[in-house]
């Protein structure tokens, strides 16, 4: 049923889907790790990134410019969320930030409906990536290979930044112990804002890059945030490599689930989630604590 050529194709499909998850979940995981906030508006940055990128693409015809516009619109929304809303509720630390970001996601969804209407839209892959490659006898779309490659580059860049630069050390310090970092004179509110904006940038980027596969429509935010939350729960917080491995694992598991047990495939990711919660509540790569 599953020959080698098909297995390779499905593995690549899983990797591409996993990379899209990584672009979305890396930011969410960082925000959660640093600020302890579950940002339910994160899916909205993904959706708005897709819509704004599409608008830019239609206006200019440039796919690269559209990626930039999508990413920046995510960043801008992230900045507004952190600076004008979340800062007011950091001290509360209970359900308020979750409720606040949930409310923001509803507002952004309605705003998107108003601006871009309810008609689903689609982004066409640029001509230079619109071809297939013959891999072990199966045709495979070049665009998905580009997503895998792009995801690897982004991961390496973030990893080097986090591990090899002073700013990266500051972020790590903030994740490990905010009070101590503040005591050492680090401007934690500024770090919060920058990390939040960066996470939103990745979401906006992923939203547009993923739009030729997932489409652009109001409701994409809800579809995608559920998966991102699953990644954060399964992977645990605070580890970028952990987040990547989790995304790829879930992407591959989901894809093979669709092939091997199609009737129950929608349960694959959530079955893994339940098992992880039962066996290791801090997540596969979590740094401790059961919160």
């Amino acid at each position, binding site marked *: 049923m599953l020959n080698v050529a*098909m297995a390779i*194709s*499905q593995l690549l*499909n*899983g990797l*591409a*889907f996993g990379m899209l998850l990584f672009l979305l979940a890396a930011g969410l995981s960082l925000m959660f790790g640093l600020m302890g906030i579950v940002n339910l508006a994160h899916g909205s940055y993904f959706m708005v990134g897709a819509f704004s990128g599409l608008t830019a693409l239609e206006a200019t015809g440039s796919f690269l410019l559209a990626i930039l516009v999508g990413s920046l619109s995510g960043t801008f929304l992230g900045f507004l969320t952190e600076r004008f809303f979340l800062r007011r509720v950091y001290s509360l630390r209970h359900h308020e930030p979750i409720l606040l970001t949930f409310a923001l996601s509803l507002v952004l969804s309605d705003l998107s409906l108003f601006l871009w209407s309810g*008609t*689903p*839209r*689609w982004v*066409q*892959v640029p001509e230079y990536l619109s*071809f*297939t490659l013959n891999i072990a006898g*199966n*045709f*495979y*779309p070049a*665009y*998905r290979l580009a997503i895998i490659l792009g995801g690897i580059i982004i991961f390496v860049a973030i990893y080097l930044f986090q591990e090899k630069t002073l700013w990266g050390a500051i972020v790590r310090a903030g994740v490990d112990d905010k009070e101590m970092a503040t005591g050492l004179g680090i401007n934690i509110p500024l770090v919060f804002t920058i990390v939040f904006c960066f996470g939103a940038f990745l979401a906006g980027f992923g939203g547009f890059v993923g739009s*030729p*596969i*997932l*489409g652009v*429509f109001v*409701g994409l935010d809800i*579809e995608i945030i559920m998966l991102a939350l699953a990644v954060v729960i399964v992977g645990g917080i605070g580890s970028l490599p952990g987040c990547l491995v989790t995304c790829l694992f879930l992407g591959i598991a989901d*894809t093979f689930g*669709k*092939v091997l047990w*199609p*009737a*129950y*495939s*929608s349960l694959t990711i959530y079955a893994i989630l339940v098992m992880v919660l039962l066996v290791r509540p801090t997540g596969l790569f979590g740094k401790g604590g059961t919160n």
Partner: protein
Amino acid sequence: MFGKKSQSIISGFILLAFAFFMSCLGVQAQTSKGPIKIGIDIEMTGVMSETSMNAKMGYDLYLEEIGYQVTGRKIKVIEYDNKTDPKISMEVAQKLVEKDKAHILCFGTNSGAAIAVRQYAERAKVPMVVVAMAGAEKVTLPPSKYAFRLTYADGQGELPLGGYAYEKLGLRKMALMGVDYVGSTGKLWSFQQGFEKAGGKIVQTILWPLGDMDLAPQFARLSSDAEGIFPFIPGDISINRLLNQYFEMGLDKKGVRLVTHWTMTADYLPIKTFKKKMLGVTSMAMYCLDFDSPENRRVTQLYYKKYGKKKMMNSDVAVGYESMKFICKALESIDGNAEDTEAFIKAMHSTKIEGLCSKSLSVDQNGNVIRDFVIRQVQEKDGVIKNVVLDVIPQTHQPPEGYTVMPGK
């Protein structure tokens, strides 16, 4: 005293006066009855609202054309949004019948809800007419005295399309792809019946659960023996996803043909989105903008005059228009006496109208429409990429009971 000529004039005058008096009495009688109440239980919001609101544009267009009256009696339309929720559909149906005293109950798109409302209409003894979509066979099978569907039944188009794919498109081995739920598997199974009866072979059936975000793994499973695919998936987002991933996997370039349901080749969305990539995709439909008939040209002109060119004339609008025309013609044949349910039901069975792309529309003993289906293909014609008519399958019927139920589903 009077000459013969004068006598004739006086007799004629008396006759005219009598006729005028009688017609006044008739109008007075119609007026005293109040308007004909048509209650409409429809999806104004929710996932099926696009189809239903298109159908609404169609029936509004017809009602406006006849000035909201039949044989001098006013028509009052009472509409409520069922929010694409079967529970609300039932509440709306009850409200329309019990509170608003609707003479005729019209229904929108949602098959599941239509089956439930049909049972209620039977109990309440009110004629129910489906005016948008509702494919499932249980809407009209087993037959109900009170249920009518003027749109189509699952299999009505897919069955002949299967035969057409073998005989005219030259396909011998095909795969079926779709969502694993009754509204989809019914269509796939009907197509399979038509294709295999003609001599073709279905080499693979690929099903997946509703809400799948990435369909590439499904396409990667496709057998290399398949010369063509018959896919069906509901919802605009999912349709675009499926088409996109078919193109993305290079299946069009490999020569794997796409033969499908009309919603997958609608001019206003998939063709607008994928443009030239859609060339060659073949579908069956109740409607085609390119169909050359005086009625289609006339109604299309009316449509653009009323609604402008922002949205293309489409199948759902056509079906909404035809359905309301059918109801009104039936009412006309009983002098607008909507209170006489038995007479209205009888009239529905004897009414025959001209459709936009169908020489005639009538209903069978089950209350399901008998209509022509169009086989269309996306082609570039006059510099525009659009569906053009390849063939017409005349006077299609609903397949027999069980014919659209995939074994094990």
